[in-house]
């Protein structure tokens, strides 16, 4: 647990911190880009489809976001992803956010990836942002996305993070919700390319 101390004389630094967060979105490596059309997909690229859910779901008052642009963090989980597996042992740094997946809770994401396997290292969501406090919730990772060469689209499943009232993750489950995801995939992209089911697997 790393609580935070704020002094009023350091409130200016907190403001600087907010600017820093704004700047961070410009500084960190890009997120995996959402895909709206398969026509722009390169030969060595794959659409990764999946979903993140919280059980029980996030209540409206549980995420307190204030200030400019803070709405863009609403219901959003940042999934830290890398082609090289590693265990995050402390708060992720800016570099860890490069290649992230930005997933809106309870909605399928469709993101562009290289046609190579990669790993979900963990997740992060802002609980308090833009006020005097900044609080984040972290979610466990250790999951492999198994993309094969030639895959145009893969479905990785729904990651359900079960949590208690203290935001401790009590269980993480991979749920196969392929039919619903495939229906949305076909509606979005047509039936030219199949959505191959390749559910996330725990890294051994």
């Amino acid at each position, binding site marked *: 647990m*790393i609580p*935070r*101390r704020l002094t*009023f004389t350091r*409130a200016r*630094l907190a403001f600087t911190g907010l600017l820093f967060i704004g700047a961070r979105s410009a500084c960190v490596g890009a997120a995996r880009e959402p895909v709206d059309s398969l026509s722009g997909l390169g030969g060595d690229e794959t659409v990764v489809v999946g979903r993140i859910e919280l059980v029980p779901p996030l209540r409206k008052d549980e995420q307190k976001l204030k200030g400019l642009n803070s709405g863009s963090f609403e219901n959003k989980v940042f999934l830290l992803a890398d082609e090289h597996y590693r265990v995050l042992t402390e708060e992720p740094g800016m570099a860890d956010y490069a290649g992230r997946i930005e997933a809106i809770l309870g909605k399928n994401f469709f993101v562009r990836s290289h046609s190579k396997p990669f790993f979900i290292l963990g997740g992060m969501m802002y609980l308090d942002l833009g006020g005097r406090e900044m*609080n*984040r919730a972290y979610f466990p990772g250790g999951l492999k996305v198994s993309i094969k060469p030639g895959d145009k689209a893969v479905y990785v499943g729904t990651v359900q993070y079960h949590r208690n009232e*203290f935001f*401790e993750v009590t269980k993480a489950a991979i749920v196969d919700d392929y039919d619903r995801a495939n229906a949305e995939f076909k509606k979005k992209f047509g039936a030219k390319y199949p959505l191959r089911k390749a559910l996330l697997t725990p890294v051994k």
Partner: protein
Amino acid sequence: MKHRIWLVLGLITLGLLAGCASSGPERDINDPTNSLVFGYIDMDDAPTKVSSAWMVQVAPPSDTPYWGLGVSKGLFYNSYLPPGSYQLSKFGGSGFFAGQHEYSFPRQGNQTALRISKPGIYFLGSYKYKKAKSGMFEQGKFKIEKINKPTEAELLKRILDESSDIKDSAWGNKIRARLAQLKS
């Protein structure tokens, strides 16, 4: 001028905190559903002592989730918490040279998390403030480490000695019974 602005902001914040204090505890001290929650923080290594403390109710959901705690030389307590889930939210303190400080606890991974399913006496523990490393542009960070002293019994005795409201309420006998239980 700059200093005045921060002073005004500080006063506004204190006003808001006072508002929070009155928003939580509109309960009779002898309400049989009350719980007494208490703990201790050693702030010797902190920039200031603690002069205000707050718990946040995380379940059931509430429009007024913040509960003010009584504070006395590191001891903090509240004697009218209804059943629910709580954790320490923040401490406040000020010093002549250090200025106004606020010590916020995380919402996830908070080691003071407490579930009250039935009314009773709950000891959160005794802790010591430790400074933690923070980045150049980050707010100051700290951690709290559990310590063995003061004990639950020592703190309960202090509550009886220092709060006549509690001593003269239904809590007086309950605390004495708990002290006897701890002694045996």
